[in-house]
């Protein structure tokens, strides 16, 4: 039984729906850890509210945030996956159908950037990236809706043969630009090298890694730890009203390039919406996040 149009359509819509109603377990654990170590009373109160909001959303099947963002999917196709049908159209059609039936209804956030008109449809919506996994017999779909609150603070600058000091100083510059604005504590993704588009994609993918996991590259693992301490030393705190917890994690990755080195920095707000599942060649759906 191949991986069908219908299966991809149903699963991509489900992943988006699920992502709106539940904060991922790694993120809840990160908030609990932050609450245990936070020293400021106001910040502790805000963290408790975050945990309360997340639990209430899950228990009562509510949206955590009124801003459902725009649907963003990252699809990885195994080279041994057997496909039946237009799975690209399936993702778009799945979102269109979801808009018709989801309860409660979604607000209109899909925005034409030339007119600022908002609706449910628009060019290239949903936003989908495509990747290939050698030998795999599945299609993996990761859904990570993005909204203005944290999305607008992403930034990229291109350097020439930068030192690690320059790269880290740039990350801190972007953190300062975001300040109190991005619904902290955030998950920060940093992409170094490659080309303009590759660095941005690496940064975005870095935010998808589970909080609490260690980067397998020792140089990056050390960078992540010291950048996390540096970001939390700024003092912006939960919701940017002061505290020890401005970020739950900093995740860094890189690609080799040519010596002109783009450095991309992006943020996920504290609710860190993320769901992921695989459809196998035998039709089995494996929910992973």
């Amino acid at each position, binding site marked *: 039984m191949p991986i069908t149009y219908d299966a991809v359509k149903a699963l991509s819509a489900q992943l988006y729906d699920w992502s709106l109603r539940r904060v991922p377990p790694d993120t809840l654990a990160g908030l609990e850890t932050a609450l245990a170590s936070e020293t400021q009373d*106001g910040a502790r109160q805000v963290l408790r509210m975050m945990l309360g909001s997340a639990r209430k959303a899950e228990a009562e099947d509510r949206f955590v*945030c009124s801003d459902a963002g725009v649907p963003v999917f990252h699809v990885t196709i195994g080279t041994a996956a057997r496909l039946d049908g237009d799975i690209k159209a399936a993702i778009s059609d799945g979102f269109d159908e979801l808009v018709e039936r989801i309860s409660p209804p979604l607000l209109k956030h899909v925005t034409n950037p030339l007119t600022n008109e908002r609706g449910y449809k628009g060019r290239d919506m949903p936003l989908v990236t495509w990747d290939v996994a050698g030998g795999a017999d599945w299609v993996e779909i990761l859904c990570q809706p993005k909204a203005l609150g944290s999305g607008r603070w992403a930034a990229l600058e291109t350097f020439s043969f930068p030192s690690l000091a320059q790269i*880290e100083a740039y990350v801190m510059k972007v953190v300062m630009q975001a300040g109190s604005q991005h619904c902290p504590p955030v998950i920060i993704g940093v992409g170094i090298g490659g080309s303009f588009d590759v660095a941005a994609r690496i940064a975005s993918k870095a935010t998808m890694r589970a909080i609490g996991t260690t980067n397998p590259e020792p140089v990056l693992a050390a960078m992540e730890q010291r950048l996390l*301490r540096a970001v939390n030393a*700024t003092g912006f705190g939960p919701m940017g009203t002061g505290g020890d917890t401005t970020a739950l994690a900093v995740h860094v990755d890189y690609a080799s390039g040519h010596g002109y080195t783009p450095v991309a920095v992006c943020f996920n707000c504290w609710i860190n919406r993320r769901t992921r599942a695989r459809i196998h060649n035998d039709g089995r759906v494996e929910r992973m996040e």
Partner: protein
Amino acid sequence: MRTIRFPMSREDARSLSAGDMILADGEIVITAGLPTIQRLVACADEARDPPIALDGGSLFHLGSYSQDTADGGLEILYMNPTTSTRFNPLMPRLIRHFGLTAVGGKGGLDAGCVDAMAEVGCVYLSFLGGGAPLHSAAIKAVRAVAYPDLVAHYRLVRLAVEGLGPLTVGIDTHGNSLFDTLQQQAADRMPDILARLAAERAAS
């Protein structure tokens, strides 16, 4: 924690300090739309009454999904704050013209707004982003919805709420802004932060 009646009185506004946390009972007016704020500025400029009275009121940058009910009423399915700094250029005009006592949303407002708020006696209240389940549960009734031609979260909505919050006083009437203070504090700390990064790089 102190519970304050809304619309907030000028006296209550002036009694608050940046960093205080409060709960809100009473009536508030909300919108998350830039076109809405522009329409309200046009009302001020043209000396017209807005469709929902704002004089001495409390106007928050909260988006909501409002819809008609079968019995001819209105309901809000969910509500949550939006980024207030988007409205920085327009808020001083609204704060001064309508004599607002409380504004709010998330992320704060800039120095021009802080000045207008000190002049008028208005506070900024920070709501939890991603707090839709909590904020929505505090809604007791929908009093009015204006600008129905706009998308739902842009509409101007007057609500009765009970136990909304806790809300953090981000900017008080005395010119104190947590957001400005924290930005300056982070800038002041940055030389030390960068020095520590350098030391840790050298040690790793």
